Each structure stands twice: as structure tokens, then as C-alpha cells.
């Protein structure tokens, strides 16, 4: 039996680690950023182990874009107890591997089992580990780096002693690392293994002389050459492993290079400017370790560890992201934009763990304790120790609970109703798109066979609509500003291209854009998610395209990763057993020879540490002060107005109310009533983007100012000026309350009669295709006019159409431009300049813009600010000489709110100023004006649309002010109904039988005469979006 005792610190660390993390993951892991994605991948392997092609996301993608080991492990375990069982089991294994890994790595560095035990304890609570596991959910990364740490002693021993056993062991572990996470071994080579080799060389040199001091550069080089053979053998072997183990990954990377536009990542921000990124990617990963950073550096810059010292310095600097220009220069533009830099901080913090363990050991029972007690006394030492331990634990629990206090994900969604919806009535024959799901979209994907155009692993995106944009998902496109919403709008406008028929909306924000792109609500599921549907979409073809890969790659991908685990287990199992059970006296590994004795803690270092902590405290205090000053809300009229809008934007009504002049006696309930009665695009769907205050009139006690606000809405960017009066009372500025509309609706109680519609769908309950007689006839439409126009160097199609049928119609207008050789130049659908749902005999004007897949070309400057209404017009090099229009009507049953009257209109100074009056019983959230312009011959010239900022409440008025366009450079190129088709048939054929004698004069009577620039008449049509139908 061994005389060596079990390391009680390590055992304690393992026990605490499993209990602490093992129980916490059940509350955190599923709301992390990545865990659900890993689960989705695992599900893929569990259902089709050898087939790398997955149809669920991005119109199909290959899972060979991510090393498979962790996913396959979860997948295998899921066969035992389900996906979540697999996920949690792998997570717990990861925790164990990490703690033991830190222990072995520390043992290698310090050669002291007690110190290594302390390091393992520190590792359990280290905030970088807590963050990686409980906030990011990066299991492969954790497993990868843990195995790498296990591998390091073996590498050391191979180079030092040249025992084949160690080399085999090192290779077996490295292979597991490679199969878990590709980035870890590649960068781990540079940042962990190179310094390790340096340390070995240093140690071997040390054996030739009496102390590290005597090692000179020459000796170092000589030793290096002596060991070079082993180093090369190891290096070449690892290279072969890196290439071989995940060979299909490299083949795939070559075949599908990541040519996409980089996605912004918080770790590349300037942490001083974007403090939230600073918190997530710098402050939290470093945590309390940052306070002892001078000690870590001091130790790593001692001669033995000098290579580690250089490595950790580089890691620390690279981890600062965009705060300093150095990472960009070191990595180069390309790597800087592809890598997430937080991993450098993670590695730096992991690298500091041995030294932190050592520090803690010396503080608690070593020379540092003695030094402090001698210098400052017992009590100071106790306080210091308690503060250190306390803050360490506090930081760990702060990190683990961050997701609870500041949720990173939308509320947990019950996916069962969605899965049921997709399974019933063959809904899974179309693609769907979740909106506002967060990473939970991956959960849904792993539970259903239905496919989505979106996805959650952005490196695998294939559609140019997605890869050309810096958006990781369509699902959260509102957070990606212009590019996000622009991209989403294209998917929603031309959904037939992707067989996209259903949208699951978990975020009201997207509702208006869905409506104006021609979608309608289908039903609200039990979990509160609204299903939107678009008509006239063909189901997915039975056979979908896929990229085929050779069988040997599939076999490699399916067999090698699991094989590496089996081999690593077989190679290392003996030593694990011996070590754990102490069955056999094992010779102490070679690195135990280089133990440092902790006898005299340098006093200078104590001073430096105190100074460092002091500096950090000063910086924190300064930061706190700055935050306070920036938030001093009432020191000037500008500040109070800004704060007022900020408060309103976040719906902090109480705070907003506190800025209102207290003498105005406006009660909070009255204030809230007044601010919340108004619905509309600004009040319900807008996010304040910028605010600029201009003072109009100013005195000491009173100011009139205008707040120029800029709001982001799903439809467009809105600039609106608000006039405010502010007043000074007791040295504080207040806002005088706005006057509220006093308009009284005429009726207290009213009734309304409407025609409502219902579609049976399949009348017989059957799983077969809908019976022939249950298929509704498509409503007949007639295109009344169609013109190809050129406006501002852009080609567009404008026209008017009417629903001739007796059933209401959902209208899709698709137009294509051709050159004189009938070659197709561009094709697109009418987006929001059309009324998509029209009643029998209703007409609507329409406009088709030909949009380019936005920013497909790199040279086109991307707009820096967000304007969803903006798009890249398709660059049509040739002059189109012909066009066609394919319109399709389908029976619609909802969204025909017509009870809004244009009750007043003034045409002055090139503006249309009017009043809308809502006489129905639904509150109109976003009224849209479709303004058609006509020439003096009453020929249609142009169609424009305008979203009225505020909604129209029942029996109330709403004013609008629309600026007429200058159409002097708008010209009609071609006016023709020749190539217009309705439901696939020529436009005229059926229309003539329904309306044989169309009264053309009547249509012209409806045009308002104006004196416009380039036009003489306008026509106003209304398209009303009801946000909350009652």
C-alpha cells in the first residue's frame, strides 16, 4: 500500500464541485447561450449517427462544421435517458474533468500536492469557469481545456524522460481534446504547450547547473537541441492527430469556407465604452483573481516559468478585445473578426489558477500568513483572509445568479404546443420561422421534424441572405438593427423562395412587419405564442438537395471521436486506478524535483499587491462616481428631458412621472393613464435610438425645448420632434405636463355590424390531402394598370388591382423585369406598399421594389445606423424593356378593417395634412396611408406608403402630416397589361367575363387634384393594422 495519503483538498473540491455545480446546472444550463445548441446537435447524432447532413436549419447544413465528440457523447447518453440526461451527465463529467485537470496542471507547475489541492478548490469557484458553464454553456470548450490540462503532465514527462508510455498517454488525451473542441488544441498548442516545452527545457537545463540563476541562454539552447527529437516527435504527432482526428472538419472547412460577414461579438468591443461587454468578457472571467494579478505575474515571470509568463501576458492582452488596438494588430483583421476573444481571458484565468492556489495556500497556511501577521498583526490577516474568501464566494454566486437577475434569454417556452402544431395537418411540410425565441429555438428544432430557414449555428449558414449580414439569427433580428430587420423583411416578403409558411412570434415587436408583408395571425397557442401564416406558399419538395460527402468521411466522423475516448480510457485507466486507489507505490513524476519552497514571501510584493488593490479600488470608485454624474437627472433642462424619455422607453412610468412638475398636481395614475391610452407604432413597437435636445427659448427658471427623437420600429425609422416646457423648482428642473387631447367621442355605447368569414379547410377528418371539392377557388383579381417606372435611377413596378370576386382575397404580387432578349433581370414581391387583404370589389395600388440581397457586395457601404425601411435596390445594369406580373389571390378571412374615414384633408405647402376618424369598434394600431400619384392625364405614376405614427382609437381622430414627393424625375418607361397574370391565367381573360363594361371614368373621379412637383393628382388608400383584435 502506498504511504501517500489521499489529497483531502482535492476530494473536498470534487465533492463541493459536484454538489455546487451539479445542482446549479439544473437551473442554469438550459438558459445558457450554447447548451441548447449542443443538445440539438446531440439529437442529430442520436437520430442519424453517420449522416452529417441536417435539414432542420438554414435549408440544410452539415454538422461537420463542429467537432462532434461532446455532441455524440450526449447523443449516446440520450439513448439511455433522453437528451437532457445526456446533457447534464456530460456537464457533470466536464466539472469533474475540470477540477481534476486543474489539480494535475497545478501539480505539474508547483510540484506541491497541497498547493494543487488549494488550486482545485479555487477552480471550483473560479468565476471564469462558472461563467463558461452556467452562462455560456460551452461544454465542448470546458471538456477540451480540461483534457488538455490532464494531458500536460504527460507531455512534460515524455519530453523530460522520453518514456513511450507518456507519449502514448499524451497523444491519447490530445486526441480527445481535438475531437471535443478544435480551437482549444490549436491555440492550446501556442499558449499552453509551447510554454510547457520551455519549462521542460528549463528544468533539464537546471539539472545541469545548481540553480535557475545559472541557466544562461546558451545552455538553454543546447538543452533545447538535445530534446529537439522528442519535441519534434511530439509536435509532428500532434499535428497528425489534429489533422486526422477531425479530418472531415478540415475537408468541410475547405469546401465551405467561412466567407460570411463577421458577426459582432461583445468580446471585441471596447470594454470601457460598452461596459456590459466589459462585465461579461473581462470583469467576470477574471473575477477576484484580478486582484492578485501582480502575484500571478510575479510568479510566472520567475525564470523557470518565463515562457508561461510570456504566454499569460499575451493572453491577458488579447483578452482585452477592442479596448486596446493591440489584439487587432496581433491577430490581424481576419482572425480578430472571426475569433471570440473572451476565450483568451478564459485561458489566462485558467493559467493563473495554479498560482492562485499557491497564493491562497501561502495566505492561509504559508509564508504570506507569517509575513502579514508579523507586519500587520493577526487581526488584519484574519480580516484579509475572510474578505478574500468572502468576495471569492460572492463573485462566484454573483456570476451563477446573473442569469436570474438579468435574463439572457426570453422566458422559458413550453414547446409542446408548437411541436403539436407542426405535427398536425401536415404543417411540417413547410418551413417555419421562430421569432423572439432566443436559443430555445434549438430546443424546438430538436423536437420536431419541421424545418426552419433560420438556425442557431451561424458558421453553418448557407443562404447569401444570411451570410452577407452580420446577424447570427433572424429570430433575434431586432437586436441587429438595420441589417437584422432588413434581412427579416426579405424573408417575410418573398417567403415562397424558402417554402416558409409559418412564423411563431414570441415578440410583439415583429407583428406590424408581419402584417404589412402580407402575413396574418392564425391562432394563439396555449403557450401564448402567436402563429402567423402566409398564403400561396408551396410545400417543400419531397426530395431536398444536400451536399453529399464520401463514405469514408462519414465513417471517420462517426467512429474516430468515440474511439479516442475508448483508447484514452484504455491507455490511462491503469494509472488512474493506481492514483485514485493508491494501490501501488508509484514513483514520483520528474517534475516533483523542482518544488519551490515557500519560506519567505517577499515584502515588496506585499506592498505591490496592496498598491494594486488600492489602484483597483480607486478605478472602481471613479467609475461609480462617473455613473452617478451621468445619471444626475435634474441638473439641467436637457438632462431632465433626456431622462424622461429614457424612463418612458423602458416603461419606468414612476420614474418618468417624478420628472413632471410636482406643482402641476398630476397624479401618477392620471399620468400613466394618459401615457398608456395611446397605442401606435411609436407607443407600442418603438425603441428609442437617439435623442437630441435643442433649446428653443431659455430663461433662468423656464425653458422651451424640442426633443428630436429617433425611434426604431420594425417598419421604419421614425424621427419625431416633441416640444416641452421645463421649469426650475428648488434648484431642480422639471417638465411641465403635456396637454392631453380633450376630444370626447360622441357615443358612450355603440354597435357595429360586420361580415365575418370562415374557411372550413378539410370538411372530412382525414390525414389525406385535402379533397378536391374542399379546395376553395382562388378569388378572381384584375390588374387594372401596371407600369414600369424609373424613379431616382431605380426601376420599379407600380399598378392597381381589384378583387372581382365575392370572397375576400389575400393578394400576392410578384413581378419580374426582363431585358430586350427576355432575359430575367430581377424579381421580387410587393412588400408594404400594397394592401394584402382586400374585400370583394376593393382595389389597392401596389409597388414592387426590386431588392438586392442586402450588402451582398462588399464594396457597398453598409449603413452604420439602423433603418428598416432602407434596402439595397437591385443594381440592374441593363435597361429593362419588359416586365411581367404574377398575382395570386387566395381566400382570406381576417384583417379587413375598413372603418377608418378620412374626415378632413388640407393640401398646403406640398403637404397632405389630414384627419383620420375611426368609426368602428377596433383600435387601429398602425394606420398606413397608401398614396398613389397620378399624372395630369390621370395616369398612375408612383405609389408611396406612409405609416401614421399614432394609432386611431375608437371614435377618435388622429392627425397626420404627409409630405408629398417630388416626382419630377420619375418617368413611366412602359405601361402594359400584356404580361399580367392572375392565378396563372392571363389577366384579361376572366376579368372580361366578370366586368364586361368597366367604367373607367369612375376610377378617375376618385383622384384628388393637387399642384405637385411632377404630378397632378393623388389618391389616398388606407390599410389598417389592428395590434390587439378584440
Amino acid at each position, binding site marked *: 500500500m502506498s504511504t501517500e495519503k489521499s489529497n483531502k483538498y482535492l476530494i473536498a473540491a470534487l465533492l463541493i464541485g459536484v454538489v455546487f455545480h451539479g445542482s446549479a446546472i439544473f437551473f442554469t444550463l438550459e438558459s445558457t447561450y450554447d447548451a441548447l445548441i449542443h443538445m440539438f446537435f446531440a439529437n442529430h447524432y442520436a437520430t442519424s449517427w453517420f449522416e452529417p447532413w441536417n435539414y432542420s436549419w438554414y435549408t440544410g447544413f452539415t454538422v461537420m462544421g463542429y467537432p462532434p465528440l461532446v455532441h455524440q457523447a450526449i447523443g449516446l447518453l440520450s439513448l439511455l435517458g433522453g437528451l437532457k440526461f445526456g446533457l447534464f451527465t456530460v456537464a457533470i463529467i466536464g466539472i469533474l474533468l475540470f477540477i481534476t485537470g486543474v489539480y494535475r496542471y497545478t501539480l505539474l507547475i508547483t510540484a506541491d500536492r497541497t498547493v494543487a489541492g488549494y488550486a482545485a478548490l479555487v477552480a471550483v469557484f473560479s468565476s471564469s469557469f462558472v461563467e463558461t458553464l452556467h452562462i455560456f454553456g460551452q461544454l465542448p470548450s470546458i471538456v477540451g481545456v480540461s483534457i488538455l490540462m490532464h494531458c500536460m503532465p504527460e507531455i512534460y514527462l515524455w519530453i523530460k524522460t522520453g518514456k513511450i508510455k507518456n507519449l502514448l498517454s499524451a497523444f491519447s488525451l490530445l486526441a480527445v481534446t481535438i475531437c471535443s473542441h478544435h480551437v482549444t488544441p490549436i491555440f492550446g498548442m501556442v499558449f499552453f504547450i509551447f510554454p510547457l516545452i520551455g519549462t521542460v527545457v528549463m528544468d533539464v537545463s537546471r539539472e545541469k547547473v545548481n540553480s535557475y540563476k545559472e541557466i544562461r541562454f546558451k545552455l538553454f539552447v543546447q538543452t533545447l537541441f538535445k530534446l529537439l527529437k522528442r519535441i519534434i516527435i511530439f509536435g509532428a504527432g500532434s499535428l497528425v492527430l489534429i489533422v486526422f482526428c477531425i479530418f472531415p472538419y478540415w475537408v468541410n472547412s475547405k469546401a465551405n469556407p467561412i466567407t460570411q460577414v463577421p458577426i459582432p461579438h461583445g468580446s471585441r468591443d471596447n470594454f470601457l465604452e460598452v461596459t456590459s461587454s466589459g462585465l461579461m468578457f473581462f470583469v467576470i472571467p477574471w473575477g477576484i483573481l484580478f486582484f492578485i494579478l501582480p502575484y500571478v505575474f510575479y510568479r510566472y515571470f520567475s525564470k523557470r516559468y518565463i515562457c508561461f509568463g510570456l504566454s499569460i501576458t499575451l493572453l491577458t492582452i488579447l483578452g482585452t478585445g477592442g479596448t486596446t488596438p493591440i489584439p487587432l494588430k496581433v491577430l490581424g483583421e481576419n482572425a480578430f473578426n472571426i475569433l471570440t476573444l473572451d476565450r483568451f481571458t478564459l485561458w489566462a484565468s485558467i493559467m493563473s489558477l495554479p498560482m492562485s492556489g499557491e497564493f491562497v495556500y501561502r495566505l492561509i497556511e504559508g509564508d504570506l500568513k507569517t509575513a502579514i501577521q508579523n507586519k500587520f498583526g493577526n487581526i488584519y490577516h484574519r480580516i484579509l483572509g475572510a474578505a478574500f474568501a468572502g468576495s471569492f464566494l460572492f463573485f462566484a454566486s454573483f456570476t451563477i445568479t446573473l442569469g436570474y437577475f438579468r435574463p439572457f434569454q426570453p422566458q422559458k417556452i413550453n414547446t409542446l404546443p408548437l411541436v403539436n402544431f407542426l405535427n398536425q395537418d401536415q404543417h411540417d411540410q413547410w418551413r417555419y420561422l421562430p421569432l423572439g425565441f432566443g436559443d430555445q429555438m434549438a430546443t424546438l428544432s430538436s423536437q420536431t421534424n419541421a424545418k426552419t430557414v433560420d438556425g442557431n449555428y451561424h458558421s453553418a449558414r448557407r443562404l447569401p441572405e444570411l451570410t452577407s449580414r452580420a446577424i447570427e439569427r433572424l429570430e433575434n433580428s431586432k437586436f441587429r438593427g438595420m441589417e437584422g430587420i432588413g434581412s427579416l423583411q426579405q424573408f417575410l416578403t418573398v417567403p415562397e423562395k424558402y417554402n416558409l409558411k409559418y412564423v411563431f412570434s414570441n415578440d410583439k415587436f415583429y407583428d406590424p412587419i408581419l402584417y404589412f408583408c402580407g402575413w396574418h395571425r392564425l391562432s394563439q397557442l396555449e403557450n401564448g405564442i402567436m402563429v402567423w401564416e402566409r398564403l400561396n406558399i408551396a410545400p417543400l419538395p419531397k426530395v431536398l438537395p444536400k451536399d453529399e460527402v464520401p463514405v469514408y468521411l462519414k465513417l471517420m466522423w462517426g467512429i474516430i471521436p468515440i474511439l479516442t475516448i475508448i483508447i484514452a480510457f484504455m491507455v490511462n485507466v491503469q494509472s488512474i486506478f493506481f492514483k485514485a486507489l493508491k494501490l501501488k507505490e508509484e514513483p514520483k513524476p520528474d517534475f516533483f524535483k523542482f518544488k519551490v519552497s515557500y519560506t519567505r514571501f517577499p515584502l515588496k510584493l506585499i506592498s505591490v499587491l496592496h498598491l494594486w488593490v488600492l489602484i483597483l479600488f480607486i478605478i472602481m470608485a471613479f467609475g461609480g462616481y462617473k455613473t452617478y454624474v451621468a445619471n444626475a437627472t435634474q441638473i439641467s433642462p436637457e438632462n431632465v428631458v433626456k431622462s424622461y424619455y429614457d424612463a418612458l422607453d423602458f416603461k419606468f412610468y414612476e420614474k418618468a412621472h417624478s420628472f413632471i412638475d410636482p406643482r402641476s398636481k398630476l397624479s401618477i395614475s392620471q399620468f400613466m393613464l394618459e401615457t398608456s391610452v395611446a397605442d401606435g407604432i411609436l407607443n407600442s413597437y418603438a425603441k428609442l435610438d437617439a435623442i437630441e435636445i435643442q433649446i428653443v427659448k431659455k430663461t433662468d427658471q423656464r425653458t422651451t425645448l424640442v426633443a428630436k427623437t429617433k425611434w426604431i420600429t420594425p417598419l421604419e425609422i421614425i424621427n419625431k420632434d416633441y416640444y416641452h416646457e421645463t421649469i426650475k423648482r428648488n434648484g431642480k428642473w422639471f417638465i411641465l405636463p403635456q396637454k392631453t387631447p380633450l376630444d370626447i367621442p360622441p357615443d358612450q355605447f355603440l354597435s357595429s355590424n360586420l361580415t365575418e368569414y370562415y374557411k372550413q379547410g378539410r370538411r372530412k377528418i382525414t390525414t389525406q390531402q385535402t379533397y378536391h371539392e374542399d379546395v376553395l377557388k382562388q378569388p378572381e383579381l384584375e390588374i387594372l394598370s401596371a407600369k414600369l417606372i424609373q424613379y431616382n435611377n431605380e426601376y420599379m413596378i407600380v399598378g392597381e388591382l381589384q378583387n372581382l370576386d365575392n370572397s375576400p382575397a389575400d393578394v400576392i404580387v410578384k413581378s419580374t423585369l426582363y431585358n430586350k432578349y427576355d432575359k430575367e433581370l430581377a424579381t421580387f414581391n410587393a412588400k408594404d406598399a400594397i394592401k394584402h387583404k382586400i374585400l370583394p*370589389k*376593393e382595389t389597392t395600388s401596389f409597388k414592387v421594389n426590386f431588392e438586392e440581397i442586402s450588402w451582398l457586395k462588399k464594396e457597398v457601404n453598409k449603413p452604420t445606423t439602423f433603418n428598416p425601411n432602407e434596402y439595397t435596390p437591385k443594381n440592374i445594369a441593363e435597361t429593362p424593356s419588359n416586365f411581367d406580373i404574377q398575382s395570386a389571390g387566395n381566400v382570406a378571412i381576417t384583417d379587413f378593417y375598413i372603418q377608418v374615414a378620412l374626415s378632413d384633408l388640407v393640401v398646403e405647402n406640398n403637404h397632405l395634412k389630414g384627419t383620420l376618424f375611426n368609426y368602428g369598434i377596433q383600435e387601429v394600431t398602425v394606420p398606413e396611408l397608401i398614396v398613389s400619384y397620378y399624372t395630369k392625364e390621370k395616369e398612375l405614376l408612383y405609389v408611396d406608403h406612409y405609416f401614421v405614427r399614432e394609432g386611431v382609437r375608437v371614435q377618435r381622430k388622429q392627425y397626420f402630416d404627409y409630405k408629398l414627393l417630388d416626382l419630377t424625375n420619375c418617368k413611366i418607361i412602359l405601361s402594359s397589361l400584356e404580361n399580367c397574370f392572375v392565378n396563372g391565367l392571363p389577366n384579361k381573360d376572366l376579368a372580361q367575363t366578370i366586368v364586361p363594361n368597366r367604367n373607367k371614368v369612375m376610377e378617375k373621379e376618385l383622384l*384628388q387634384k393637387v399642384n405637385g412637383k411632377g404630378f397632378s393628382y393623388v389618391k389616398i388608400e388606407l390599410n389598417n393594422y389592428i395590434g390587439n383584435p378584440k
Partner: protein
Amino acid sequence: MKKIAVILLCICCLVVFAVVKTTNTAATIKLDTSQKKFTAGTPILIQFSSLRVVKNADLFLIHSYGKTIVKGKVDKNKLRFSIPELYAKKTGTVSWYLIQDRKNIAAGQFEIVPNDATPTLIENYLGPTTILTGQDHYTMMVAIPTDSYDNPKTDNTTVFIKDQFLDDITVTTKKTADFIAWKNIYSRTASGKMLISTQCNTALSKEFETDITPSIATNFTIDYARNHQFADGNQITRLRTSVIKDQFGNLVGDGTLVTFQVTTKNNIFLKTFAATINGVAIAQLLHPDHQEIYTVKAYVTGMAESKPIQIAYQALIRDFPYQFLEKNRKIVVGPLTSFMNQIVPDGIKVELKIFHKNKLIETKIVESAKGLATFILLPPFYKQSAYQFEITTLGVTKKTETIPYENYQ
């Protein structure tokens, strides 16, 4: 000798056998089956025979289901082929080629005809399922009578096509041609549901339906109703169409959109919309807030219209009081009183134009509350010594004197 004879005989036999074995050419094989027509669903056997023992061969079939090869069965000098059951159930012409040793040695064809002995089935298609009233529109009923094996019956099979509309039931006899019997069933002048069915022998179809929906609207009239005739900017005028019908007197389809265009005195077009219910569309319009004459005309765009009507609104007030208070810094307009001397409903727009030396400086708009509208001119913002004002409300404009103001330091 006898021995020799036996040996010779044996040799002869061998020779003959060898000859038989090797001279099995096409000329020696002939088709036994003379039948050229087979009934679907019955077994079909094609038999060939030869004078001598035959060698096996394949029968290559071209059938409407596709091409296939059938292996034969040799029975001495007979060669039999059994057509697969699936093929034997399907009507049509079948071509065959007899292939022996990769050589085509015979060919021919036969026909499979529908099996009239089995119960008749009938397959139907009707479309479109909605048509308009009138003489020009029709829906087409297609009937395909088949035998039990889904083979269309031979041409000239009799099919009855029946349709019902209101009290009127029509039965037409049609003969199938090219497998189908069809009829264009013309629309009627009344709207409603038409039921259609077919029959062939004992086979009956289910009930099919086509909705006859009204044709486009014809001209109509409009009318209005309101609570009072005053332009108070608050009450509602209801615009109502007569019952809109198509040319045959059917109510137009529910939900037909009617646009009411309102022309003001200043030739501005206002609009309100309504959809019909039982032929009547009722739209609403807010009263103007000043004296006005509206000309209203309604349209079903491109199809029908009404004659214009005129609606006159009387001014609510002829005059209104105003006063200057608090060193002329507060201007109170009102009380605005209405036609019965009651206070006007809240929210009446009052506009104040501020002039200094005949130059417009600012326009302020305030809504009335309890009949009063208050404007406050704060000294710091209005520093001049005199202003003149123009107040407009409910279509009445009043210009004040030039009002002096104390100087502001």
C-alpha cells in the same frame, strides 16, 4: 446384327435429339392463343407451340403500366406465359415480343377491355365551385364511369348528369367519349347553391355543389341620417346605400366594398368606406367643425355608382367671446356655446395666431375644455410691447385690437 441396329438406332436418336436441340428456330414456333381481346381481371395466358420440344423463352411486354419480361413455362412442345395479375386488370393494348436467345422471334399484340361484369364505379370532378349569376358562366361536371378495377368504361357508356337548383331538377343523358362524360351546367339568374350528381348503371355519385354568387353591382342610391345638422365636429352622419343588387336582382355578395367620396366646398375629397351586409353598406362620417356643404357619391369601383347627394352643415356659432386677463397675459376664449346655448363638447380646436407688427410670429392650438380655451403668453417669451391676435374656432375667425404689454426685463 441386332446389336448393330440397336447401336445405329441409338446413334440416330442422338442425332435427332441433337438436331432437335439445335435447330429450334423461330419458324418452328407458333402462337396458339388466338384470342385478341381479354376482359380485365381475368387470367390471361399466352401459349406458343412447336412441333418439337421447345426451349424456354421470354415474353417482353409493353403495357400501359410499363415494360416487363415474363418468364415462360415449358411443357414439352408448349410454351406458356401468364400475364401478371396487376397487368391483367388494366385495360389497354398490350404488345408482346417473344425473345429467345436474345433474338426476337415473334411479336404481336392483344387488348384488355373493361370488365362490365364487375360493379360500376364512378369518379367525378366539378369545377369551378363558385360561378356568377348570368347566362355566360358555367360549371363543368366530368364523370368517369369505371369498372371495379378502375378501368374507364368503353366509349358510349351512358351517364346521367343531374343538377338541382331551387325547384328545378334537370337530368341529362350523356355518352362517354374518350373515357369521360361531361356537361357544362350553365348558371342561373338567381344566386344560390346548385347541387349536382351523376349516375352510371347502378353507380351513384355523391352530392357535389356549386355556389352561384351574384354578379357585379348595378347603380344604386344613397341616403344619410344624422342627429342634428350642426357642424360641431363631434357628431356622426351615417351614409347608407340602397339595397345594392346585381343586374338580375340578387343582393350583391356580403362584404362588397363601397367607397363614399365626400367633396367639400373647397373641392377636397374626403373618404369613408363600408362593406355591404344584405346589400346595404353603412358608412359613418364625422361632422365638420365649420359650416360646410358636403357632396357625397358612392362607388363600387369600376362597376357601379350612386347619384351624388348633398349634405349641408350649419355653423354651430356665429360669434364667440374672448377676454384678456392677468395683464393681458392670459387669453380666455369662450364660453363657446352651441345651438341650444349649451356648452360645446370638449375638444373643440381653437387656434390663436400671434402677430407682431402684422407679422405672424406663432400659431398656437388649444382644445376647449368646458367651453373655454386658455392661452398663456409668458413674459419671458413674449417680450414685445404690443401684439395682435387672430382667433379661429368652429369656422369663425376674429381679429383683436393691438394689445399693449408691459415691458419685460
